């Protein structure tokens, strides 16, 4: 199953900005996070197809998953 994974801010360091990735059916957001060597506790926001999702969410073919560390501003 192929989906697009997007990383932001310091999660990009030593990884990538955006990549098409293959994962088994039934993979969760959290599993993708840990597969990238990111601590799920450091994740601020995850979005699937521009909507907020929780880390338990199962992903599907063609999804766009965005993973952000804890950030803020004004």
């Amino acid at each position, binding site marked *: 199953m192929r989906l697009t994974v*997007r990383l*932001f*801010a*310091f999660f*990009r360091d030593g990884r990538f*900005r955006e990549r098409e990735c293959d994962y088994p059916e039934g993979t969760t957001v959290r599993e993708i996070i840990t597969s990238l060597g990111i601590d799920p506790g*450091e994740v*601020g*926001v995850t*979005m699937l197809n*521009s*909507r*907020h999702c929780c880390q338990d969410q199962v992903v599907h073919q063609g999804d766009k998953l*965005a993973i*952000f*560390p*804890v*950030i*803020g*501003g*004004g």
Partner: protein
Amino acid sequence: MADRIFRINMTELTTSIEEVPADWMGHGGRGLTSTIVAAEVEPTCHPLGAKNKLVIAPGLLSGTVAANSGRISCGAKSPLTGTIKEANAGGTAAQMLARLGCKAIIIEGQPREDRWYSILIDEEDVTISEETDLVGKGNFAVVEEAGRRFGDRHGIITIGPAGEMKMLAANISIKDPDGKLRSCGRGGLGAVLGAKRVKFIAIAPTDAKVEIADPEKFREANRVFTKALVDNPISQALGTYGTNVLVNIINEAGALPTRNFSAGQFDGHEKISGETMHDIIVERDGRPKHNCHPGCVIQCSQIYNDKDRKYKTSGFEYESIWAMGADCCVDNLDLIAEADHLMDDIGIDTIETSVAMGVAMEAGVLEFGDGEGICRILREEIAAGTPLGRIIGCGAGSVGRAFGVTRVPVVKNQAIPAYDPRAVKGIGITYATSTQGADHTMGYTIATNILGVGGNVDPLGKEGQVELSRNLQIATAAIDSTGMCLFIAFAALDDATCLPALVDMINARYGISLTADDVTSLGKTILKTERAFNQAAGFTSRDDRLPEFFREEPLPPHNVVWDMTDEEIDAFWDFS
């Protein structure tokens, strides 16, 4: 030095230093400016006439060593919105005024003659002098010349040509520790100072210190407070990427107003993002981390250099970059930085002016994406006060009216900032109900709608938005009174030690015993004071509405509209 009120009468050209009335004792920053404006300004007065007053106040903790406590508030009746207005900024002025024992400056009246003035505040006195050399000059020239005249350590509050010409987007600028500028941006307060014919205020340094009633308790509370700020991951992200870190997350959420609020995502987002800005800054030997006032531990500001590694701009904010970037479709950070620098010098609000440019693009005055055109209009039209320059310099609503545009994103005539309310409903409530017109900082629901701070409220649903905006507007009014930068709120929302430490510092400074409930009451009182002023000025619940197009035009990619009902919006004020 005991705190006092410095009153400056520009009709009689006299000054007086007065005792603080009992009613004003517990106030500072926005609470104080709003209390004074509500007490002394006729709500129906013309904002550019003799009856308006400009009040400048440091916060309750300004001048102490409390981390992040150096914000200054400017207040008046706004010539842009017609409502009460408070705009705040960093820079060095708040700390310097507090150390001189200045609780507030009140500038009232209006000169009878066609002359300009400057004001000097030092340990001895408040002095008004006629000013000729700097009239018509940009803010950077004012800071430089004032440095020569008075000394480099003087604080400066200044207006640029926009304020002199009484443009409604004119800001008030505050000198920062590097001699650059921070802005009391929103609501045209620069025009109020221009109408009183004050070009700048110089503040002398002093060795005097602010009195602390209980120094030991203060020190301990500050230690806890500072740790909460430093440890917070958002502080760290801000120190690396600046507020511009928001471009990508707001774009991903489909809420980045693009092409004059006609879409929620911008193709060029990566080119203007905080990540890209960080890399450019580092590559050109700028500073990605920089504070706008001494004692700030978050350091969200930056110094952005041009291709030749020379200073181009600082305080390069998400709002400015969004507005010229996504809203005007300019995907070139160097052109945006040039425009940012020009706006600093001219003394004009980057949000209002840039959203006005977006409306002007919709009107065909220039093309979307024309960054060179934005810079040309700033230099040759706005700075020169041509008729086109004046139309744009009077804000987004003004451009819409002059050119017959219907997609004009304003509330109470103030331009809507960098979050589309159709895709983030909580911020729409803030825009609609804020006593200040469309303003994102007044009740920053983005924290909870998008960033997962202080909980999670779905940005695309109606549920919980009114309560979220209300709680944040109340808390923000209180924080705005302390002299604290609003970015302490990220730590305050998620670290239980933060707010109690802030309250402890206030108590230790003044020898009082406020509780957290007292702080909430303070916030509510300020909002009610401001609302009462607006009602007396003629505002009703019909003004707490978003423009029609937000209801009619679905915003891609979510294809959502603003659908909060009038009753739901008005329920915001159901609190006592």
